[in-house]
């Protein structure tokens, strides 16, 4: 079974996310055994951010890593498990709220495809970049 990053690569809709993971130096961590739950924003989600936002982050790996880590939970959780709790602790430190169980909404993003199982965790595809705060 492919890893989280291999799955994202194969899907073809996560070019920006994968480039960001590399720029932030998180590839090795996300290729590890984990397991992780990753909320993966599609390319359109990054494109919807105002001009310059992504570039500034890509130019500053530690800051970019912080935003990316906000999209990751330690442990593998499917949708059915996620909705049992109001908040989940992100790797960044700030909590990720579950705002709606169905359709599944994580913070202000909607999960467009849930429960993509990988060898080292689960991916839920989201339509927005989520931010701490």
């Amino acid at each position, binding site marked *: 079974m492919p890893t989280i990053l291999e799955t994202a690569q194969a899907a073809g809709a996560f070019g920006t996310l994968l480039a960001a993971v590399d720029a932030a130096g998180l590839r090795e961590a996300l290729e590890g055994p984990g397991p992780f739950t990753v909320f993966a924003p599609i390319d359109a989600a990054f494109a919807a951010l105002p001009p*310059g936002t992504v570039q500034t*982050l890509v130019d*500053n790996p530690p*800051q970019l890593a912080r935003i990316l880590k906000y999209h990751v939970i330690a442990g593998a959780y499917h949708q059915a498990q996620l909705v049992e709790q109001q908040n989940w602790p992100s790797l960044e430190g700030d909590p990720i709220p579950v705002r709606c169980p169905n359709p599944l909404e994580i913070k*202000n993003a909607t999960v467009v495809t849930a429960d993509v199982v990988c060898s080292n965790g689960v991916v839920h595809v989201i339509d927005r970049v989520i931010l*701490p*705060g």
Partner: protein
Amino acid sequence: MTTTTAAAGTKTPLIPPSTHPYADVIHRLEAGGSMLPDTPENLQQIIGIYKAYAVPMDFYWRDLLYIAERVFLNPLPAFKYFISQEYLDLPNSYAGDQASLRIWRGGEKAHPELLEFMAKGETRAMPKLLHHLWHDRVNMEFAEACMQAMFWHQGMGGRFNDYLASEVYRANADRAIKAYFKGNLVMLGLYKLFPEMFIEKVRQLSYTANLGLFWEVMAPVFFEMSDLYDEGQLTSVPQAMDFLVNGIFAVAGRPIYHHAYIGGECFEIIPKSEGFTWLYEAALPYVEAVFYRTSPFRGTKSYNAQADQVPANQADFHYGILYADVFPVGSAGIPPTLLMQDMLHFLPPYLQELYKQHRRGEEDQLIQLGITFQRSMYNVTSAVIQALRCALLYPLDDTNPEHLKANRSFFEAQMDRFLRPEARLSDIQTQDYR
């Protein structure tokens, strides 16, 4: 997400109107507008004052970094406002040809109007020391007062303040303190006796760097807005607000750090690798500590606890520009009046003309420009509110009523902060407030 405009309102709204006392303002925010009404005069006022603010700000950010990075722990910093040529020439990271993210099409060095004022002041060309002693100079004390507000209010969001209390920071500061006072047995002895005093001073300098890095961004933002207005490309208050929103996002990820240069070596007291960001660790804390809270200015409130004039709860502080009674009470050196004097020096001609036509003309232009400044900061706050809504909530043209209700709750909670009588949100709704 480059504009915040919502769909035109000919269809039935998806949620009922707000019943908040500031419902009109909330509906305007929900339509992509600002707390400040969209009128040609409001636009003229705020753009003109943004430009007048940006010129002294160009000095503030440079000198704040000079103080945080070079003056550092000088126990007698009598010349901390005598900025070095290196810092006066420091390239602004967001202006000039060398900028990787160019916000202002102008140059990266100090603004020409600033240099001209530094040379002549209100009087004439004379040695710097005389300008300084006569106080015919940029009022850097205002910048330090803003830093003090952030430093004193401390945890205004983000991770910056928690880091300043950490062992890692203490170790970094310790290294820098010992390097700075290397060979100085008296100061090293004092450090041994009163270590907390020295660490606290370094924390203050870290906030100084924080504010310098924050304003390094805002100066080119305001300069560019002024240029766009002069070129006829900024034609409404919401457009001006949107420019700020886009700027906030573009620079949100800028690192916030504190590097001190001691004996030719760089000491990373707060390294960039800690991941602190312009949005979370600088801009949002600044807005909270300076626009909303600040502290009562000496001479305006009694600091006697028995007089009960100052709230016991820090969260109730309401002395920022959004609550200010701009008419100054005449006590020399109140920070806002220092800024007002600074801005007076750099007013564009159209604002000078505007003030001559109203109230007492040139005799009260400081008040008039102070109120203009208040309008402009309500617009900046609107941009921050819209940026937060954009980042953490939903688009204004979302078709899900639950999402719109969440946006509505957020806007209403923001407007709740202006229900207290000192708030000027109602006043800025009319043009007659001058």
